[in-house]
């Protein structure tokens, strides 16, 4: 076993908080194991102990034969460790090339091996054109990919990746998994990673579910889903099932999109006309026009760096537009900024919370900033704390809270003054599925029951289903705008349905399929591609796979939202190449 963990325990605050409580598991050579679990379950602590940067209080852990509890320094030669956060381990002022060079030198990678490896990684991540760009100017997804190159540059035998794809757009995430699978197949690399994306967990050979510091379920994705009664059980269902038995209430299943009539007869509360923002020669937002009505949820989807954040900032009055007009809650954002501010709520990507202030203090500050009187503030804070499940954490500081709770706190402080318009900038990045469901219930409730106008950006395609209207952004432009089902229908009309191939040995099958269909992608454990002539494709591929001795089953599927997105970008001739 490359990784062998027995009874590992880590406590904080003199033993009062148990971050890791007697965890035992093993990972064999060439295996990809995913650690999933709600925020604060102890996943990061396990990885940090294995990487030798955190001491353990009890138990043993060995990585590649090295006892990391006793001799943490020895393990550092064989591992590649990627900490949590959007490329948090990069040096912003250094260029892409310089960041890679630093890790090469730090790890003493021989030159020949380096050249070869670097070229391959750059090709796979498509970062080669950006070598001279400072890392600080890259989008989140590009940062994450660069961080991965830096982690892989010394060809480590063991990879410890902490939420490597959080905040990364779907297209970049596919690149990421292609790299991982290539390394596992070609070099027998062992991978232990944490993730909050359940479709990614399905790509792992085995999955371990952690909760409150303990492992509560483990097995292959099939074993875990099979153990559940439901026929079409997904890992997300497994996650929700196991956790609901551990004191966490699952939110109700995602509600269907309500009818359009709910808001069409109201005047738009957010209106942008040919709104643009340029930074020097770079156009961040390019003539975007859109309207959002009271009670409507508009979702902005797009890869990292598409201009979603800049658009939202302009609508909030945080970023002056270079051209165009924006009217929010009846006031021009540029000229009547002060009037707009009282009626909007804004939740930024970074959850602008004061890390040294308690939950209650953060909320009281927000109440004060919007001039709520004491009684109203107290009433609303109590109500929000209760409805968001934050009541028991009211005296804790955000830094000590899991991401999901921090996110809810950020939402609470954004809606405390009951704004007419709510701007949410990637509010769910890195948050576990259960917390995300809960979060969306709240947002839908705000919009559909209280008539709040919501404009939200996200990377999670499954969340698109929560929106009434979707806008696809790419390179600063709004390339599609419409109801989710409309967009899917259009995309299917343009590019055909999906062909999906299920094969037990999906890694090998994937290599083979790609020889025939270069566009094919791994989606979970499935190989899929959009096809104008699905039947012909199926015939050809099943024959080829059978010839290679691979068992496989193919079917035609409707487009998912992610497929729709990729297809729209492709059709617009905008997909990256």
């Amino acid at each position, binding site marked *: 076993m490359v990784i062998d963990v027995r009874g590992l325990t880590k406590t*904080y605050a003199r033993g009062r908080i148990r971050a890791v409580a007697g965890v035992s598991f093993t990972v064999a050579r060439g295996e990809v194991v995913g650690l999933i679990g709600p925020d604060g379950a102890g996943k990061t602590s396990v990885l*940090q102990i294995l*990487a*030798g*940067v*955190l*001491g353990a209080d009890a138990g043993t852990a060995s990585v590649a034969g090295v006892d990391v509890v006793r001799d*943490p*320094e020895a393990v*550092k*030669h064989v*591992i590649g*460790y990627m*900490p949590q*956060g959007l490329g*948090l*381990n*990069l*040096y912003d*002022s*250094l260029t892409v090339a*310089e960041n890679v*060079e*630093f*890790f*090469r*030198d*730090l*790890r*003493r990678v021989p030159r020949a091996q380096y050249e070869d490896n670097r070229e391959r990684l750059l090709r796979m991540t498509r970062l080669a054109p950006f070598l001279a760009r*400072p890392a600080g100017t890259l989008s989140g997804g590009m940062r994450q990919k660069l961080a991965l190159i*830096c982690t892989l540059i010394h060809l480590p035998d063991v990879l410890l990746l902490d939420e490597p794809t959080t905040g990364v757009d779907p297209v970049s995430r596919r690149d990421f998994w292609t790299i991982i699978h290539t390394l596992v197949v070609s070099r027998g690399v062992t991978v232990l990673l944490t993730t909050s994306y359940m479709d990614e967990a399905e790509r792992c050979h085995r999955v371990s579910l952690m909760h409150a510091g303990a492992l509560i379920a483990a097995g292959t994705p099939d074993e875990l889903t099979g153990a559940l009664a439901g026929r079409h059980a997904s890992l997300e269902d497994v996650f929700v099932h196991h956790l609901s038995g551990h004191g966490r209430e699952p939110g109700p299943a995602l509600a269907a999109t309500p009818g359009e009539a709910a808001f069409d007869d109201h005047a738009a509360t957010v209106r942008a006309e040919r709104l643009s923002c340029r930074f020097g020669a770079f156009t961040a937002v390019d003539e975007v026009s859109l309207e959002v009505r009271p009670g409507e949820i508009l979702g902005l989807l797009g890869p990292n760096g598409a201009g979603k954040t800049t658009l939202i900032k302009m609508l909030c009055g945080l970023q002056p537009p270079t051209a165009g007009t924006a009217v929010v809650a009846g006031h021009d954002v540029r000229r009547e900024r002060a009037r707009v501010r009282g009626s909007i709520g804004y939740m930024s990507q970074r959850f602008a919370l004061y890390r040294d202030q308690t939950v209650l203090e953060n909320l009281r500050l927000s109440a004060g900033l919007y001039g709520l009187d004491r009684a109203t503030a107290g009433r609303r804070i109590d109500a929000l704390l209760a409805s968001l499940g934050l009541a028991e954490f009211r005296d804790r500081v955000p830094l000590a809270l899991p991401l999901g709770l921090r996110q809810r706190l950020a939402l609470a402080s954004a809606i405390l003054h009951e704004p007419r318009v709510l701007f949410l900038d990637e509010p769910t990045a890195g948050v576990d599925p259960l917390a995300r469901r809960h979060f969306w219930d709240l947002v839908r409730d705000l919009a559909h029951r209280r008539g709040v106008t919501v404009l939200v950006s996200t990377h999670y395609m499954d969340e698109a289903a929560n929106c009434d209207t979707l806008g696809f952004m790419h390179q600063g432009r709004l390339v599609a705008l419409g109801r989710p089902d409309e967009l899917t229908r259009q995309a299917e009309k343009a590019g055909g349905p999906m062909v999906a191939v299920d094969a037990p040995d999906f890694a090998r099958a994937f290599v083979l399929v790609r020889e025939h269909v270069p566009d094919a992608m791994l989606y979970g454990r499935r190989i899929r591609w959009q096809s104008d002539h699905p039947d012909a494709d199926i015939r050809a591929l099943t024959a080829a796979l059978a010839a290679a001795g691979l068992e496989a089953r193919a079917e035609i599927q409707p487009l998912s939202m992610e497929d729709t997105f990729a297809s729209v970008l492709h059709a617009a001739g905008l997909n990256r190449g």
Partner: protein
Amino acid sequence: MGDRVLAIARKETRQLLRDPVYLGLAFVVPLMLLILLGYQLSLDVKGLLVAVVDRDRSVWSRQYVDGFVNSEYFRLVARLDSEAQAREWIRSGRARVVLDIPPDFGRRLSANETVAVGVTVDGSFPSRGQIALGYVEAVSTLYNQQLLRAWLVEHGWRGGQVLPVQMEMSVWYNPTLESKNFIVPGMLVIVMMIFPPLLSALLIVRERESGTILNLYASPATRWDILAGKALPYVAVSFLDFLVIFAVSVWLFQLRFVGSAWLLSAAALLYSICTIGLGLVISALTRTQLAAMLATFLVAVAPAFTFSGIFAPVASQDAVGRFVAHLIPATYFMDVVRGAYLKGGGAAPYAPSLAALAGYAVVVYAIAWLALRKRVG
């Protein structure tokens, strides 16, 4: 070991060069200070405001007061009438010194008697008060010598040409007694204790705040690799700072420099290693950048300013002061700097100071090594 140190050093260098404002200011501020001190701002106490209450108004008293008027150390601002008025001038800061000449001043001197002149000094700035008293004494001594000479002539004592006991004063090292000649080299010592440690004090704590420190923690780089890699470029910056200041002081200000530039450079290098190391210790022990900065001011900058002997000899400090002075590297470097600029001579007199700097460096890096743990939390 070497290549990992270089890897970290190269990274630090690149980061440093990417923030030209920050790096630039680390050179601009010391230079500006130097130019201020070298050209405009004089630390010499001159032109002290003096007022006179002359109750005698005789030739004698006028002669005596002329001694003050003609001295560059004093500026006569007023002739007052009463002691009360004099007090008021001192109190309001319009005069620092008041001379009270008694009504019988001329009469007593012409009768070969001793006469007392009251000198009131503003003591609220004590060192200035002492200097003022010293100057008053000097002017009075000159006047007394004049009186004595006249008396000797009158009494036929060797033609009045020589005094019975005569002092011959020669000033070495800084013959013109300009404060610039010792303040500027002194500022070199202080400035090198301000900017390099402030820069290096942010090195570790900043990476800890941003999270990039994990790269180093999770890599095979040893604690020594990390410290040396981070220190290297900053020692170079500090040394460069030294070279710039040195060049400016010698060529632009034409300061006296009689010693060995090599010896001074060697000491500056050792001193840079110490100051950067001190910053790293602070950086390894603090949790926020602000705390690191404030700690640097209190632990590195302030003691250097107060105890290194920039304004007065270390020997003149009290026991506590002398003890602290010997704990800080600035004192030892000051010894070498003053020596190199003003005194010259071989390396031998400075060997103890150089050894102290080397010893200090060893201790500082040992503490930094102990303080830096490759662990989170």
